[in-house]
């Protein structure tokens, strides 16, 4: 069986041709998880396999799911001791849609506890490791999902973002990660972090797989009042149209990044030029303000969202929160407190408006904005705990899209001098996932991501 490295689209083709059965496919990945999971700590809980055959657009395709999506009957911890033994009595909307599409749940992946972090090190169940170098962090908070894709323990994974939690681990693990527009994919059943920011999204090895998964999980949900009624696009069809775009580049998103990252991103921009796209300089509000807006709003929403964990109806009591959660809860309480609200929360909401207007203005001039996804490539494990505010700074290039709610994708664009993946970020206008996927697809066809994805799993051939 020649399965290693096949995309979901290719696997569906093989299943159709009966090159192998669904059961064999599930067993193949299951074996890989058994073999490699102790190395990466990507999965926290494995689901039972099923015998039935699955119909639908993802019929028979195994998938990994971040452990903050409720899965009925399958333990869901958000990587926190508070929920160590929590078995949800219901499925998240994304879980239901994946199940209905015929995808088969392999298990739940590790993350930063409550999605608080950018390295998966705040997990109460131990950090995940970066398959490119197990001394390094996979990024986070969807680090387990990114590691699972990178080492091909899963062909597709579901992650979630509040700010960067899909794109940043995708960049560090060298895979494709798409953060859709806020409201494009329902949040119902996703353990809430920053309610006005949270976005579920796919992590995959090709742009087309990302489009395929998005088609499955996107769309209005009557259980999520913030989910959008905007019709879901035919992303796969749209992405293959030959388009020449105007690509915006902002100095503000090219500053304070490592030389290696800069080099790879500049090369990617050259490739876009070569493909006939127009590069246009644009001016954006410095992302350092997005950090502040994000920090205030997210901490406030965290302090509120984690208030329900009192150990009465489910889970352990509040003494089980880790350091990072406690810090965030208390800062959130501070900024919402009487006398501070206007200076912090209200101010952040106003700056948020400025950032949104800024993006809207620029998207009148360009189709997409391109930047690095992260200022540096994967850091060593242990770096983050030294500086509690480090995560926010590491996610500086992701937070603009997060606070404004626009979609953005990470695609690999080469390796740095330490042989670690470098990520390219493409940001798009509201609900214009088709355009960023189109450009990602063009880049993939042109470069095959410089074989980054292939090199990622080829070291785990067995």
């Amino acid at each position, binding site marked *: 069986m020649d399965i290693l490295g096949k995309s979901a689209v290719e696997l569906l083709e093989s299943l159709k041709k009966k090159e192998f059965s669904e059961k064999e496919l599930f067993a193949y990945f299951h074996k890989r998880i058994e073999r490699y999971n102790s190395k990466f700590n990507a999965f926290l809980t494995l689901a039972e396999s099923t015998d039935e055959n699955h119909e639908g657009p993802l019929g028979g395709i195994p998938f990994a799911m971040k452990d903050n999506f409720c899965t009925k009957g399958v333990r869901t911890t958000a990587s926190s001791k508070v929920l160590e033994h929590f*078995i949800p009595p219901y499925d998240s909307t994304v879980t239901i849609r994946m199940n209905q599409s015929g995808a088969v749940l392999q298990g739940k992946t590790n993350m930063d506890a409550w999605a608080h972090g950018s390295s998966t090190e705040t997990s109460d169940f131990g950090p995940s490791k970066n398959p490119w170098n197990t001394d390094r962090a996979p990024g986070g908070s969807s680090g387990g999902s990114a590691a699972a894709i990178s080492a091909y323990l899963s062909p597709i994974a579901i992650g979630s973002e509040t700010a960067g939690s899909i794109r940043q681990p995708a960049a560090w693990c060298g895979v494709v990660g798409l953060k859709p527009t806020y409201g494009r994919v329902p949040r119902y059943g996703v353990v809430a972090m920053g309610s006005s920011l949270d976005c579920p999204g796919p992590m995959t090895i090709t742009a087309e797989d990302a489009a395929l998964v998005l088609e499955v999980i996107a769309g209005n949900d009557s259980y999520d009042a913030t989910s959008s009624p905007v019709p879901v696009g035919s992303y796969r069809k749209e992405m293959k149209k030959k388009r020449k775009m105007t690509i915006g580049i902002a100095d503000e998103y090219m500053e304070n990044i490592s030389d290696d990252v800069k080099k790879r991103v500049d090369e990617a921009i050259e490739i876009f030029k070569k493909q006939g796209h127009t590069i246009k300089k644009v001016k954006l509000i410095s992302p350092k303000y997005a950090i502040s807006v994000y*920090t205030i709003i997210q901490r406030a929403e965290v302090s509120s969202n984690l208030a329900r964990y009192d150990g*009465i109806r489910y889970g352990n009591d509040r003494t089980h929160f880790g350091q990072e959660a*406690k810090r965030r809860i208390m800062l959130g309480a*501070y900024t919402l*407190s009487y006398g501070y609200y206007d200076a912090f929360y209200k101010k952040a*909401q106003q700056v948020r408006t400025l950032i949104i207007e800024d993006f809207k203005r620029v998207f009148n001039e360009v189709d997409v904005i391109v930047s690095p996804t992260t200022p540096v490539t994967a850091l060593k494990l242990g770096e983050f705990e030294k500086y*509690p505010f480090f995560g926010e700074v590491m996610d500086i290039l992701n937070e603009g899209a997060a606070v404004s709610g626009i979609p953005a994708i990470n695609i690999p664009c080469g390796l740095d001098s330490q042989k670690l993946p470098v990520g390219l970020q493409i940001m798009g206008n509201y609900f214009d996932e088709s355009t960023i996927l189109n450009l990602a697809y063009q880049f993939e066809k042109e470069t095959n991501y410089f074989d980054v994805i292939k090199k990622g799993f080829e070291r785990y051939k067995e």
Partner: protein
Amino acid sequence: MSSTHTKLSKSDILHLAKLANLSISDAEISKYESQLAETIDYVENMKELDTKGVAVTSQTTDLTNIFFDDGLVNNRALTSEEAVANSKTKQNGYFKVKKIM
């Protein structure tokens, strides 16, 4: 980084912990004093932007009036067994807590 230096006292931290219903150790108190202050100092940079008269954004969706119609069939009902299944302290279909005065 911003030049202001926020000072949080031990009683500030204890007050926040109380608001947040968290119990924290002495070691945590001194750690949080500086860590929270560091974050607060950083976000002070928002003051550099003029937001006079700028509307607040609490939602990026532009949606309004999302409701459901009363009496809609309930597809999410849980039995009392399901409701209390994850509770460590339950009794006859109730959740149980220490006596509240």
